[in-house]
């Protein structure tokens, strides 16, 4: 990166460090921070949508829909996310390719499963076999987002389902007494009020989501933990210009600081939201606000 970096063996101290920290490999870890943030930014709203859909379905008066919603919540919540990550991505990928295969190659005569192999026609491959590397990476990333969203959507659904039930019954009855239809009651009374009950659970979930990101490497996305392990491991001089002993501790320490800082920012934002939502609510928190004002 810098001009004086051509022969790192002669450098020491800060100059050495400045070279070391700007190798191509280190740029990858900085990039991966962006990857993680992007994943969170996309996953959070998508998972919330899954959650909202799941909770609304579970509350539905149409029994099969309600069962579907509850089954989704129960099954996905029942399985450790790590187990999902270990085989769900491959399953999703094969599922998509199978669907495309059915559509694009109707007259394919070979079996799709040949022993262990999963073989679909070339046009059905996702992404296409000759696509550029970034397409593959984006596709892998989207699969990761989908997997995360499905998993955390179920937890969000559970939180929202609980929050909907926590809204004081009297409020809903009042709405009914005013002649609101169930749909109106749901959207105008229940949904606006449930957030204050849902927020502690959702913020907890957000924290869990942030901290599930170290498992991204299982989904084939090269995340910060992957790079921290890779960069931190002991390096011998034969394979690098920057040999060093086992430095994983320092790299993980940097990750720790990163995650703590990220959590702190999240907390501040969530606190603000909580204060807004608590405003005017008939709870201890709302009462404290009222007294302070």
């Amino acid at each position, binding site marked *: 990166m810098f001009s004086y970096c051509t022969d790192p063996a002669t450098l020491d101290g800060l100059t050495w460090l400045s070279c070391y920290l700007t*190798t191509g490999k280190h740029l990858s870890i900085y990039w991966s921070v962006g990857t993680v943030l992007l994943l969170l930014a996309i996953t959070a709203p998508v998972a919330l949508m899954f959650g909202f859909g799941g909770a609304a379905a579970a509350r539905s008066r149409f029994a099969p829909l309600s069962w579907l919603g509850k089954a989704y919540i129960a099954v996905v919540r029942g399985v450790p996310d790590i187990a999902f990550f270990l085989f769900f991505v491959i399953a999703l990928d094969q599922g998509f390719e199978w669907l495309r295969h059915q559509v694009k190659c109707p007259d394919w005569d070979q079996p799709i499963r040949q022993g262990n*192999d*999963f073989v679909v026609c070339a046009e059905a*491959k996702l992404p296409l076999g000759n696509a550029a590397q970034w397409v593959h990476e984006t596709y892998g990333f989207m699969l990761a987002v989908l997997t995360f969203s499905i998993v955390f959507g179920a937890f969000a659904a559970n939180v929202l389902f609980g929050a909907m039930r926590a809204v004081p019954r009297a409020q809903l009855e009042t709405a009914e007494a005013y002649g609101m239809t169930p749909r109106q009651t749901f959207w105008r009374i229940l949904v606006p009020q449930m957030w204050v009950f849902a927020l502690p659970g959702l913020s907890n979930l957000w924290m869990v989501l942030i901290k599930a990101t170290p498992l991204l490497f299982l989904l084939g996305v*090269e995340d910060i933990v992957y790079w921290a392990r890779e960069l931190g491991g002991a390096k*011998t001089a*034969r394979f690098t210009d920057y040999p060093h002993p086992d430095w994983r501790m320092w790299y993980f320490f940097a990750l720790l600081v990163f995650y703590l800082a990220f959590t702190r920012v999240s907390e501040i934002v969530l606190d603000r939201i909580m204060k807004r939502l608590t405003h005017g609510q008939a709870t201890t928190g709302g009462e404290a606000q009222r007294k302070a004002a």
Partner: protein
Amino acid sequence: MKNLLIGTAALAMMAGAALAESHSVVRMGTEGAYPPYNFINDAGEVDGFERELGDELCARAELTCEWVTNEWDSIIPNLVSGNYDTIIAGMSITDERKEQIDFTQNYTQPDPSAYVALAGAEVDLAGGVIAAQTGTIQASYVAEHGATLVEFSSPDETVAAVRNGEADAVLADKAYLDPIVAESSDVAFTGEDVLIGGGIGLGIRKSDTELKAKFDAAIQSMKDDGSLNALIEKWEIGETF
């Protein structure tokens, strides 16, 4: 008979055309954490013996290749589900693995595995605590031969475990341990080397016979003109052919 031959040839050509289509880019899957076989260099790219070998093989087979890294744990499932087309990750040819995937001919001699322990320490290799990477042939070997196996998920950690006293010794490919022992004074080889694997080959899907044939031919041509031996010597991968 002649007709049949023409028929097969036509079929082969058709398959070849299909191959050209599906394999306009061959994706090479590797681990990127096992020097000198494969590792990520300072620039953040895949490097090592297998990188050079793979690029040369692709050139000889007239294929366009792309490098992909994948965790060791899921390296085979991702191959069979088609996320990349070959495994070139220092994977020893074993009967267990051969039931699942095909291998090309081996491009290294069977590489001895070796024990490394703290320098000067007396180690009971038959009954002591031996570290190995999970899912390697070395881990199976230790489990079968009576020593107490302690497993770690990356090769790095196995060596670290010896340094911090968790394990008495580590069993791994000698070519991997060599540079580590050469550059540090605190650990040393101990005991006899053991021969476990059957050499290293490229892993390829069983259904992908065309690709296997191409790589087999390319490896053979590198063996014949000595360029493979030159690579093996350059990266110190053990015996030449």
